[in-house]
């Protein structure tokens, strides 16, 4: 049995999670505390790195104290410290990495510098248990849009596809702005779309031509198409049907994401898919993924919304997988790597 601390600070959430690795391999979540700076970024329409970094420094120790209290454990009980060392915002990552190194040194326990992206996949194992091998992961958030093949969560992850321009969540933020909806754009667009017609406007599906990359995504053209459509309406003096535009935009995003993910699972012969990341909570994306996976005979696993967004629990979970797999810990001169490749699960 082993108690693993997870620290996350790659974007705008300061997260501390505590997980217990049981001798039978089961990973139990004991605490998942998050301090978010999202409200401080709202008026800027996107995450401001320096604002996020300042918030991380302020929140780190208080969030840690809350997590320890929630888990009803002492720091002295901790057996390993895992921390996101990339990818992410350089200044933000550095706060978590610095704190994690200090906790690891003071507690004299191993340190694991881990990759944020497999962390999103590991979060699912907290809810649904061990993942079959291989599995496919579709990660969709403000920062990432990726299809990963997961052979072993602790050691072997390969990228199947990713966005070539904007992340899907970024497209949500930009379209929200076009429609005069608040930041972050995901929840208000989802809400508006519920009352709109998803077939009202046929927005383009990026990279779906016969000669386009089969598993990569592009959302920049979609965002521009929405802007053009709205501007043309305004030019013609017509009202903008916000609910129809939101529903049609959301349909285009969900359609291309799920189509390509199911295609990848089919072509790679993979029977299990994990859908995670902040946008996984989107109602249309998850319902379309459920429908298409069911039709294709693929088991779909979607962690509860709280586990989908950035948090320390996912990093504690990934750390527990590394401890279970007896992966070598990281050195104390570990540094943050904003561009850490997804194939590097731990440093």
């Amino acid at each position, binding site marked *: 049995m082993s108690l693993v601390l997870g620290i996350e600070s790659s974007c705008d959430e300061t997260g501390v999670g505590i997980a217990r690795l049981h001798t039978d391999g089961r990973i139990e979540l004991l605490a998942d505390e998050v301090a978010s700076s999202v409200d401080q970024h709202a008026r800027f329409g996107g995450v401001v790195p320096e604002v996020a970094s*300042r918030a991380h420094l302020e929140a780190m120790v208080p969030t*840690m104290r809350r997590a320890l209290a929630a888990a009803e454990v002492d720091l002295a009980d901790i057996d390993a410290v895992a921390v996101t060392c990339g990818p992410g915002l350089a200044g933000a990552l550095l*706060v978590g990495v610095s704190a994690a190194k200090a906790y690891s040194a003071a507690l004299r326990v191993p340190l694991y510098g881990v990759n944020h992206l497999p962390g999103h996949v590991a979060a699912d194992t907290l809810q649904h248990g061990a993942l079959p091998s291989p599995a496919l992961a579709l990660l969709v958030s403000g920062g990432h849009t990726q299809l990963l093949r997961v052979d072993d969560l602790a050691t072997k992850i390969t990228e199947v596809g990713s966005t070539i321009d904007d992340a899907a969540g970024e497209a949500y933020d930009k379209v929200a702005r076009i429609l005069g909806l608040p930041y972050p754009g995901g929840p208000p667009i989802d809400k508006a779309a519920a009352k709109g017609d998803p077939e009202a406007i046929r927005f383009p599906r990026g990279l779906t031509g016969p000669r386009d990359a089969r598993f990569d995504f592009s959302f920049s053209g979609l965002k521009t198409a929405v*802007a053009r459509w709205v501007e043309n309406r305004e030019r013609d003096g017509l009202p903008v049907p916000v609910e129809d535009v939101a529903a049609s935009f959301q349909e285009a995003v969900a359609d291309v994401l799920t189509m390509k993910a199911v295609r990848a699972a089919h072509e790679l012969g993979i029977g299990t898919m994990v859908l995670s990341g902040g946008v996984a909570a989107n109602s249309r994306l998850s319902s379309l993924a459920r429908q298409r996976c069911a039709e294709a005979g693929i088991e779909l696993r979607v962690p509860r919304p709280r586990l989908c967004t950035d948090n320390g629990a996912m990093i504690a979970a990934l750390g527990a997988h590394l401890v279970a797999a007896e992966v070598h810990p990281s050195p104390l001169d570990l540094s943050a790597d904003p561009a850490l490749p997804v194939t590097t699960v731990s440093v």
Partner: protein
Amino acid sequence: MLVLAVDTATPSVTAGVVAVDGSSPEVLATLVTVDARAHGELLTPHILGALDDAGHALPDLDAIVCGVGPGPFTGLRAGMATAGALGHALGVPVHPVRTLDAIAAGTTGHLLVTTDARRRELYWATYADGVALTNPAVDRPADVPADAPRRAGTTLYGDVLTMPHTGEEYPTPLGLVTAALGQLDRPARPLVPLYLRRPDATVPGTRKRVTAP
């Protein structure tokens, strides 16, 4: 009392172990690397290395003294996040010290202390016998008061600030602990960074059109 001193508000990654007996600090070990890009990487190894050189380990510490800037933000936070977490994990107080005060600590006479604020500006404060006369500020070199007969801290902009440079270029463990002497026997004050600048961020104006108006 065994004190760990850290500062990352300048290009120097500074760690040291200092024994304090009453009001006389004695430096047992210092480990310093001057590399503005290595704060996050090297600070914890330096702390452990300095403790090792002093014949001690982290659990022996009674207090931590941490420089709180002003300094370039990312580097500054590496030291403060490290000190904050160490203090929590070890259950010892973390005493904040202004980095410029640490450079001025123990000096005599009228002194200007400057450190590199990047973007062609300097962080600065003036001192009389090591006691601050001004609060730290950030200005272009030409706007920094040049009435002190000597300067310490960075040697940058010697063409503008022409008085002789004496004293330390970077904060030292001895300077950090000396500047903290009056507060070591009191409860630690909050560990708050001195940024002196607001984050670079602009509220977006009207959205750019993608179609011709």
